[in-house]
């Protein structure tokens, strides 16, 4: 016997109530002085025994009523609870319907999701009368279309029919947990979970936890699998801008990664890229992608105008179209301003700290500098306090001894809003100041500046960057020998960088970008607020090294700048379901924005007001359930347009189903049904039940309670009658 509400068994303690009432009544007894005692005593003597028996009988009856009532409320069930009441009374059911994007796989007739909806309707039809049902749509999140079980089965049917696919991946564990919690709140003799999914193995990562929940003795679980095995699927796993500053008019490379999730090799896979929804502007072919593997292809495109753009890579449609295209948002610029803070007084000469930096950032002859996208401005450290940092994409501190406190505060606000900071130490750098303020106080620096090693005057003693094994995106380019080498640069002197964990809320994890040959960090970075900080171990000029005159210097600085901008653009590319949070121009505060995207069926868009969030002007938009390109039109004069992209989880493209072994393990705890349009679920469920169903005893107990109460009423009346 199992109890559906075992906690209510504590109600049996109410058995003490009649005894307490009896004691209480004794306290309230009336006292009477009496003369005719002899007659009373004679009367009591004749009736005392009978009265005691009657009292005991009534007490026992009252206690019995309370015990039966507590038992009835505790809902005892004989036999297997999940089967109890099957075919006899209502069932409390939860239908969990998989709406991850893999359910969009279609064999040209009906998609897996269409089949799942039909199966769900069949489940509802098969429920016995008096049943209630909750409907949960699940992917990697659970959306409760009907959160609490409803007896309105027509409503449940409508919800199932209106259910829509998402662009999310699958997580069965989350929906199982929620379904169990839902049923836990609604005790009934018969409870069932109907998990309707395509059985994609990727969604069962925590397989043991899921089967553990399926094993619940109180809930009968059924796994209804829809769709056939799919042996072919190609999908775009990743699309990213290939590590350069997106300047207007330049050929911008995009790296497209195409995955082959099928069982066989894919040959001659055409890949196209298009900008802002226009026809494809570049196309390439991947000759071969092995089964289970992926290949990269670089495609180029140009952005004609400054501002926000989207680039969409696509392959030929297959049975699962959701992963056949992927969109990325970028910001093209023709005015990329970099502030160079030069700690050396010999400004403009090759000995100055920023000479090589400026030339690396603007690698064109002087007459062409005005037309070049990147523009630099060199200032002395003391000018930092009066400079509006927000006008610059990045700030470079080159051999700056120290900065003022106000400049540090401005720097913190600038980084918090998404700015970039690059630090090149040098001979004049006050390491103590840096460690104390930029490190300890604000936590900007990913490492402390330790001891200085090497001697620039002893050029025969040098050390170099690592020669291979570049893992960080900034330097991953040099994994390709064709890109040259970083190890050619000689370093004669550098600070010993000692990584430190971020101790402020804004500080992200410190990461090593590049190491010296001996393994000590040469370049480190950390995110800070919405911005990024990159710290070099040595100088930006030739004072301590010859990096600045090496060929690798230019691309290294370019990619460093790209990393700064990428941090800023990262917020333009979010995963499905994540809110879009965009730091706006302060002038946009209180302006309205109309947002449109692929999920916007009406086309009218959604209205949002730009407001201040944590002191930062912010546009917040949370309706990002559909993957693709989005556009925010800010109502300024003239109107400003911000484009961003929502990307789905590429892991969902892997349509590999649960293995037979896994299905066997599931079948040990739940009924597994491979649904086809010809399947009659009701028959399947009946077959599973057999004839052995348990029984909920609460009705019987309630009848007993009523009967006992009636008997008590009659006996109490009889016994209290005068004798």
């Amino acid at each position, binding site marked *: 016997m199992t109890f559906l509400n075992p906690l209510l068994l504590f109600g049996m303690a109410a058995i003490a109530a009649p005894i307490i009432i009896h004691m209480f009544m004794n306290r309230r007894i*009336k*006292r009477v002085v*009496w*003369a*005719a*005692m*002899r*007659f009373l005593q004679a009367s009591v003597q004749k009736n005392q025994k009978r009265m005691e028996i009657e009292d005991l009988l009534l007490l026992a009856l009252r206690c019995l009523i309370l015990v039966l009532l507590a038992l009835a409320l505790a809902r005892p069930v004989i036999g297997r609870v999940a089967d109890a009441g099957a075919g006899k009374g209502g069932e409390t059911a939860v239908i969990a319907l998989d709406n991850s994007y893999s359910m969009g796989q279609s064999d040209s007739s009906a998609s897996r999701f269409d089949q799942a909806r039909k199966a769900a309707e069949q489940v509802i039809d098969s429920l016995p009368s008096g049943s209630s049902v909750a409907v949960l749509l699940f992917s990697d999140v659970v959306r409760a279309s009907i959160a609490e079980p409803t007896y309105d089965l027509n409503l449940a049917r409508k919800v199932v029919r209106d259910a829509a696919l998402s662009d999310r991946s699958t997580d069965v564990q989350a929906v199982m947990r929620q379904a169990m919690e839902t049923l836990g709140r609604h005790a009934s003799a018969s409870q069932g979970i109907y998990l309707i999914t395509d059985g994609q193995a990727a969604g069962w990562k925590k397989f043991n936890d899921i089967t553990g929940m399926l094993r619940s003795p109180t809930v009968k679980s059924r796994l209804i699998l829809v769709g056939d095995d799919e042996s072919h699927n190609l999908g775009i796993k990743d699309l990213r801008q290939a590590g350069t500053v997106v300047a207007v008019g330049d050929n911008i490379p995009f790296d497209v990664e195409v995955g082959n999730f099928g069982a066989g090799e894919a040959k001659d896979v055409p890949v196209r890229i298009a900008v802002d929804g226009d026809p494809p502007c570049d196309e390439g072919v991947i000759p071969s992608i092995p089964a289970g593997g992926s290949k990269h292809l670089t495609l180029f495109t140009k952005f004609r105008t400054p501002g926000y753009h989207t680039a969409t890579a696509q392959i030929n449609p297959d049975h699962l179209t959701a992963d056949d295209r992927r969109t990325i948002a970028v910001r093209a610029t023709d005015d990329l301003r970099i502030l160079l803070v030069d700690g050396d007084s010999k400004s403009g000469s090759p000995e100055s700290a920023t000479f090589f930096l400026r030339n690396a950032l603007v690698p064109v002859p002087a007459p062409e500098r005005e037309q070049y996208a990147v523009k630099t401005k060199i200032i002395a450290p003391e000018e930092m306090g009066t400079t509006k940092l927000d006008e610059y994409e990045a700030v470079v501190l080159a051999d700056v001894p120290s900065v003022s406190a106000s400049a540090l505060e401005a720097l913190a606000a600038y980084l918090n809003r998404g700015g970039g900071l690059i630090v090149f130490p040098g001979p004049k750098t006050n390491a103590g100041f840096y460690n104390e303020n930029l490190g300890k106080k604000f936590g900007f620096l990913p490492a402390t500046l330790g001891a200085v090693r090497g001697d620039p005057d002893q050029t025969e003693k040098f050390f170099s960057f690592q020669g291979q094994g570049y893992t960080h995106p900034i330097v991953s380019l040099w994994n390709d020998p064709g890109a040259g080498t970083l190890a050619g640069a000689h370093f004669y002197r550098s600070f010993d960088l000692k990584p430190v964990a971020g101790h402020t809320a804004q500080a992200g994890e410190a990461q090593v970008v590049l190491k010296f040959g001996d393994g000590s960090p040469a370049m480190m970075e950390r995110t800070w607020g919405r911005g990024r900080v990159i710290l070099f171990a040595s100088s930006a000029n030739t004072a301590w090294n010859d990096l600045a005159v090496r060929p690798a210097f230019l691309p290294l600085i370019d990619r460093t700048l790209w990393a700064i901008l990428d941090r800023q653009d990262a917020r333009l590319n979010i995963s499905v379901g994540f809110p879009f949070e965009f730091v706006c121009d302060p002038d946009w505060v209180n302006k309205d924005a109309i947002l449109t995207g692929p999920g916007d069926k009406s086309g009218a868009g959604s209205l949002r007001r730009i407001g201040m969030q944590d002191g930062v002007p912010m546009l917040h938009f949370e309706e990002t359930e559909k993957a693709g390109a989005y556009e925010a039109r800010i109502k300024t004069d003239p109107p400003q347009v911000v484009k961003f992209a929502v990307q789905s989880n590429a892991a969902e493209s892997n349509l590999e189903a649960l293995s037979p072994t896994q299905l066997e393990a599931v079948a040990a705890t739940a009924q597994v049904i491979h649904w086809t349009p010809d399947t009659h679920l009701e028959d399947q469920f009946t077959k599973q039940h057999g004839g052995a169903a348990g029984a909920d005893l609460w009705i019987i107990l309630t009848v007993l309670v009523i009967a006992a109460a009636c008997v008590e009423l009659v006996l109490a009346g009889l016994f209290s009658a005068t*004798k």
Partner: protein
Amino acid sequence: MASEHQLLDPVAIHKAELLGLQARQIVEGYMVGEHKSPYRGFAIEFSQHREYVPGDDTRHLDWKVLGRSDRYYIKQYEQETNYVAHLLVDGSESMRYASGRITKFDYAKTIAACLAYLILLQRDAVTLGVFDTATRNYFPRTDSLASIHSLMALLSSFVPDQKTRIADVLHEMASQVKRKGIFILISDCFDDVDEVLQGIQHLRFSGSEVILFHVMDPAELTFPFKGSVQFRGLEGTGNLITRPAELRRSYLREVHGFIDRLRTGCETNGCNYVQVNTAQPWHEVLSGYLATRQHRYG
């Protein structure tokens, strides 16, 4: 407790006076009263005139009539005598019970006082005894109305706090009183019924008339209690917790059985049994009883 003045209820006295108290039997006495005496040659109460015949005692000639009418008439006298009424009031602790304002003892005292006044008003004699296990306060025979106050003072001063032994008191009275009289016993008779009846029988054997005023509280006759009640018995009968509503019928059976045995025993012994409910007005009790006596004995 009723004070001395309260013991005489004016309404009760007024009604009783009109009706008078007639002795059922002629008792012997030494005072002339309304009761016919079996003894001759001793008369003070004029009865009638008759014509003189020779041989009559000339002392009885009515000289005034002779003077006025010149006729000889003899004055004839009817000789009458008094009786002694022995009022016996139960002063045991059980008489202290009252469900309302008046205890059984208060009620008994009032009845005794009323009767004493009436009897003295008729120039008969009264004795008064208050008893429990024995006679405690005793007022000797008196025929003076002036002594009514002393009688009442005796009644008022008594405080009941002992058990009852009615039979012993009755036996004692029967052996002490030589003359026939009327014994008026006012009690709840919460004693052994057989012994009480033996005592009454003893009194009757001596030729006296016995009247029993059986005083009961209305609660003792109806047992109206509800809920759980702890009864604390008087006269050391202990305590008892019970639900009286459930025992009412059984209790009333016991009480009525007791009353029936008492009444039957009284009737068997030629004793007048009068049941008195303390809820009744005194005058109703007295006048009702006296009316009955007048009707029965003339």
